[in-house]
């Protein structure tokens, strides 16, 4: 219950997931939630397609989540990540962390986001008016891991 990871094609209800998250534990003083959304910088994006590696995806996220759980003594942790076709404005993924204090909740959420970005086997493809392009990983994504 404390650590939950879901990898799914179907949409999730961010509000419903956040409602009650971290509740019930008297030692919880802070909850941080993050929602990732399909962005359309060009104004030409028809959809995004997210490919993943079934089996490895779940294992990789579970390992990242377990590390965060232990390192920041989280009371509760939730990661949901979608795959398949997504329209601009649709939710891609969410992270929620519950801890005694806000610093732990914020740091754990940032750690999870940094690691999910470049260590969970997902690949994003943007389909626009001019064809399809794989989103390239950046130096900054890799650089972000060095602070942890």
């Amino acid at each position, binding site marked *: 219950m404390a650590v939950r990871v879901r990898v799914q094609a179907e949409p999730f209800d961010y509000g419903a997931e956040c409602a009650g998250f971290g509740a019930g534990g008297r030692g919880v003083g802070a909850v941080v939630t993050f929602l990732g959304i399909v962005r359309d910088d060009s104004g030409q994006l028809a959809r995004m397609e997210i490919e993943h*590696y079934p089996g490895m995806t779940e294992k990789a996220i579970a390992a990242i989540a377990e590390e965060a759980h232990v390192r920041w003594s989280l009371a509760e942790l939730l990661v949901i990540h979608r795959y398949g076709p997504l329209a601009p404005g649709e939710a891609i993924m969410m992270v929620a962390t519950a801890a005694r204090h806000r610093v732990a909740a914020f740091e754990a959420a940032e750690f999870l986001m940094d690691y999910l*970005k470049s260590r969970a*086997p997902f690949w994003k493809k943007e389909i626009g008016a001019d064809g399809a392009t794989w989103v390239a*990983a950046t130096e900054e994504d890799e650089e972000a891991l060095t602070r942890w």
Partner: protein
Amino acid sequence: MIDVLYFAWVRERIGLPRERVDTSAATVADLVAELRSREDRYAAAFADLRSLRVALDQQLADFSAPLAGVREVAFFPPMTGG
């Protein structure tokens, strides 16, 4: 025999999501050399190893890693989750 999986543009370049490969390659790098020599589409996919990542039995690994006992090798570009 080893299961070899391809994802994202590696899959598109090679034209397959997975295949069974009969190989006696000792390391990932040896397997890559074998695949490269097969056909142009493999040579194109494996042209620049710096733009590729590899997982052995669903764990990230290095190209120098040994293949002994490995059942599943996956090649893919750097990941873009989140």
